[in-house]
């Protein structure tokens, strides 16, 4: 798309997009690292993940501040309007993803060292598809690719299935050995956090799709996994 006549307008939109990508990059590593910390019982890594969250919060505030100022001064229209709307909403979703990853880190610190590694692996396995969802949706944002955004939006179902199977797995461990119930409860919350991160990625995909096409993806048209009661 051609540049604005007022070049500062283009610069401001570019800065917002760059800050959002930085936010996305940070939270993406937070997801992977928090789950690696669980997997390897690496408490230092968990603390490190927790320490990154304030920078995500600051970036969100920064993006918000820029957007409010831009709306007041430039009154964006059409694609510009959709892009600042999408950026504002996406920043909020990324901030939540940061919080959920931080929460996984905090729970890692509370886990007993004796928790069986089988249980730890389960959570770590789920981290990869979830972080891939975020990676793909950020890629869609960076390249303005509506098809990629839609693909992410449609594939949240896989994450839900992953969550359901992890849920059953944890229940099995807890039934077999009641001493694992404390750790299992933490693991279930971690899995739930990852599942929520998947949902946030779906939301981001909706905003990006709207930004690019001007059309809304309708939530009721999205493929859904059968309800397992969890």
């Amino acid at each position, binding site marked *: *798309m*051609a540049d*604005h*006549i*007022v070049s500062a307008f283009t610069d401001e939109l570019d800065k917002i997009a760059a800050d959002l990508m930085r936010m996305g990059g940070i939270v993406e590593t937070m997801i992977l690292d928090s789950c690696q910390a669980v997997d390897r019982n690496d408490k230092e890594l968990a603390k490190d993940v927790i320490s990154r969250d304030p920078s995500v919060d600051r970036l969100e505030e920064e993006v918000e501040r820029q957007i409010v100022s831009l709306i007041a001064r430039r009154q964006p229209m*059409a694609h510009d*309007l959709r892009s600042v709307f999408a950026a504002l909403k996406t920043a909020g979703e990324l901030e939540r993803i940061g919080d959920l990853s931080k929460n996984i880190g905090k729970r890692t610190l509370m886990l007993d060292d004796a928790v069986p590694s089988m249980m730890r692996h389960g959570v770590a396995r789920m981290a990869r598809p979830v972080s891939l969802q975020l990676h793909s949706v950020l890629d869609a944002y960076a390249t303005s690719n509506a098809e990629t955004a839609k693909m992410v939006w449609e594939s949240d179902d896989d994450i839900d299935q992953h969550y359901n199977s992890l849920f059953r797995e944890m229940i099995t461990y807890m039934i077999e050995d009641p001493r694992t119930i404390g750790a299992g409860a933490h693991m279930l919350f971690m899995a739930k956090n990852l599942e929520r991160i998947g949902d946030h990625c779906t939301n981001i995909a909706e905003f990006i799709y709207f930004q690019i096409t001007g059309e809304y993806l309708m939530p009721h048209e999205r493929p859904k996994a059968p309800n397992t009661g969890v």
Partner: protein
Amino acid sequence: MDTTAQTDHDPALTGEGADQAQALVYPRINCQDVNVFYSGKQAVFDVSLPVFDRSVTALIGPSGCGKSTFLRCLNRMNDTIDGAKVTGDIFMDGENINSPDVDPVLLRSRVGMVFQKPNPFPKSIYDNIAYGPRIHGLVDDRQELDAIVEKSLRRAGLWQEVKDRLTQPGTSLSGGQQQRLCIARAIAVRPEVILMDEPCSSLDPIATARIEELIDELRKRYCIVIVTHSMQQAARVSQRTAFFHLGHLVEMGDTDQIFTSPRERRTEDYITGRFG
């Protein structure tokens, strides 16, 4: 809606309790293949668009895109320009207003106009409003004329400010008041359509807000077409927006759609400030 609007004789209100939603889909004016030439040079090309009743239609586009020229076709103001030629059909209530049988003076009483700069007559505030109803023979006595003057000024949101100084010259008012006086003068002859050619471009933001509030009020009774250079104004006051470029109608649609998801690239570039 107040009761005076229901009892008032107003051609825009046909039948009891005319439904506003229905009115929106009813085109008051239908333009088909309108072309305008100035001394052989074409300024407007094959413009076809409907203008809906009891709503505001905004015409936007860069300078020289033909939006004001097109607006002037709707009450045959181009007739007054030497060398101007208009072709195509403009139907108002089924009648082609370009037909030689149509009296342009009568047409202009049905299609009022408000200009960029307020242009009150060099007469008193009262006479500014009374002039039209007098020459069109709309009143029988002074009492009736007083009533029209008051009602028009009330509808234009000016009555409270001028009721004690009706004999003072219209030019003694502030710019924003003068523009509302001109709107009151336009509605005094009971038009069906009001054309506005950049009505706020010489006004400050407060006076502009008053005019915009007035436009929103007037659209309950009239069909309004407004030319504006301010896209924010078009977005604020109109329900339909038409984008003109180089004499062509590029896109027309619901104002919401035009400003959030325009279909045409040229519209997008213009409203986002990318026209080079």
